[in-house]
């Protein structure tokens, strides 16, 4: 089986899905001739032509808004937003339309759309190139939010997202793009949306992470009997798997790259505090980015949750 990094795995998913289904089209800034600024869409233009792989004008609301129209007409657009920090002009189209059109017309029109965007700190980029704003999208009923942490799951999740009948925001950690390689089969397989993955079983503490933070979490638990959950789908998240683990371990650490306040870690913590509280032995700890405007590269390493901070949080909850 070929070893692939995440860029290659996602690229392969796109190629295969476009081959399988003529209705799958790709659009965004620089996704065509350039193959995307991270080369995730490399080769698609040559394979499928500029009618299906559309370099758009520089306008994010335009990209998502026209993709909504395409999706309602019957296509399955995969729209790319160049960096997550530039997704905000499209928030209105995502919240007020992609998430709602099915409801608005009681199912006559639907929006089977995938919005891919790289997120996160770690590539030493200018301002706005390092955001992880998943929490905003997780507070919008009608869309789904997926964050893969490995090449294998990335391919399988993206195929599921493309085939999903609803709008999926698909977040790709730019830091992970070329960091890890693993076996990724060619050909069709899916990883289902809405299901978490237990990466490592354990009994003393449940560590919950997604995307780039999974790998730091895994480093931090090397000497602990920890159960590590890769959430994969954030909205809707797999409550069952989380609660089952909490019932077993009684201790929880949640790791999130975004600033702490109002991040998605809060929802997981609050859900546990509501539905699995009686199994808890002590406080639920969140290890997160700080509540600050994301710093430029000189300070970005200080911003992100470190292995050390995660370890300390685990130690603390293990005290109970």
């Amino acid at each position, binding site marked *: 089986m070929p070893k692939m990094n995440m860029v290659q795995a996602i690229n392969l998913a796109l190629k295969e899905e476009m081959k399988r289904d003529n209705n799958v089209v790709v659009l965004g800034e620089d996704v065509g001739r350039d193959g995307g600024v991270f080369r995730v869409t490399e080769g698609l233009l040559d394979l499928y032509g500029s009618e299906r792989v559309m370099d758009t004008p520089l306008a994010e609301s335009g990209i998502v808004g026209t993709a909504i*129209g395409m999706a309602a007409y019957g296509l399955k657009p995969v729209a790319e937003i160049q960096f997550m920090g530039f997704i905000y002009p499209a928030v209105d189209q995502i919240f007020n339309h992609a998430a709602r059109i099915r409801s608005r017309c009681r199912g006559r029109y639907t929006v089977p759309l995938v919005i891919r965007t790289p997120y996160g700190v770690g590539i030493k980029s200018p301002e706005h190139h390092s955001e992880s704003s998943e929490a905003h999208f997780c507070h919008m009923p009608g869309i789904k939010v997926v964050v893969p942490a490995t090449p294998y799951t990335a391919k399988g999740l993206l195929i599921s997202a493309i085939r999903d009948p609803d709008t999926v925001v698909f977040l790709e950690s730019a830091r992970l793009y070329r960091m890890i390689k693993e076996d990724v089969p060619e050909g069709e397989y899916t990883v289902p949306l809405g299901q978490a993955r237990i990466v490592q079983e354990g009994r003393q503490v449940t560590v919950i992470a997604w995307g780039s933070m999974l790998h730091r979490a895994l480093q931090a638990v090397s000497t602990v009997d920890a159960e590590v959950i890769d959430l994969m789908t954030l909205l809707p998240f797999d409550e069952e798997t989380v609660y089952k683990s909490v019932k077993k371990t009684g201790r929880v650490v949640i790791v999130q790259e975004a600033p702490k306040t109002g991040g998605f870690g809060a929802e997981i913590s609050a859900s546990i505090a509501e539905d699995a509280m009686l199994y808890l032995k002590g406080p639920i700890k969140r290890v997160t980015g700080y509540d600050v405007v994301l710093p430029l590269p000189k300070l970005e390493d200080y911003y992100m949750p470190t292995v050390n901070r995660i370890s300390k949080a685990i130690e603390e909850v293990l005290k109970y």
Partner: protein
Amino acid sequence: MPEQTIESFSIKRLEILSETGDADAALMPPLSEEQIKELHELLFVTRTFDGRALNLQREGRLGTYAPVLGQEASQVGSAYAFEKTDWLFPSFREMAVFMTIGYPMNMIFQYWSGDERGLKIPDDLNIFPISIPVGTHILHAVGAAMAMKYKGDKKAAGVYFGDGGTSEGDFHEGMNFAGTFKAPVVFICQNNHWAISVPRERQTAARSLAQKAVAYGFEGIQVDGNDVFAVYKATRDAVDKAKRGEGPTLIECVTYRMADHTTADDASRYRTKEVSEAWKPKDPIVRLKLFMEKKGIWTEAYQKELEEKSKARVDEWVKMEESVEKPSPKDMFMFTYEKPTPRQLKEMGDF
């Protein structure tokens, strides 16, 4: 090589039917007597519907409602120019568009009564649901048009918005995508001179809205929006052009919002009676009636029959609307996603 002129543009205005009911023969589109009567009936029944909606709202039987009074020709004339397989994208004031394509108008009452099911578009009609956020649906029309082109379907998209809508970023992005991709879409701007309390002159410093097309490299044209023939002709030409693969057109229909913005608005706070009075002689229905009279196809008897028929149809729609069962609270959960999520299933337990 000093200053040189590199581009020149001009904006045209189309009028066919005068206020006295005379039509410019050279420009008159080929419409049969039957069709002209059909247009007249559509204008008239819309006005009847609109008046009834206001009454129902006052009685508390509808929620907030956005009247179409005065703008019927802009909507009927344009919607009439599309084919059934084309896709239309209304804003929130397009009652005459729904009427023209044969939408079950009882469902439009149902929608304004606060019930989503009124927008469960019948499968054989290609109209998008009412879109409230101003200007935003323009992009959907452009995207659908791009998809039509990609699929090789010989169709066009038509999208409706107001003078206020031209100020939103999404109008700009939609126009620009349409121009760049030569999408088969017709932009129908009803310049009714007001965006709630903001007059047209304060919405933009451009003297016409049609000229905004210059920014995107395609044609913009202004028409007398109370002249159903001019609106029809301009739209028909634009639809044909779109289907020939020659790209988009912006049509500015100059008309007037004769009523309040919505039933929640009180226009007397910001405009005088006189200014709307001045538009009365331009009424689209009066004008068409004068034309038909001159052609001998309007009689008192015809009018009486039309009034009765319109009233009967509207009565029927009201009755149908009122016989609809109340929605179930569980409905809230059924259309957020294709299937309810586990959390939603739990929440549904409350009902």
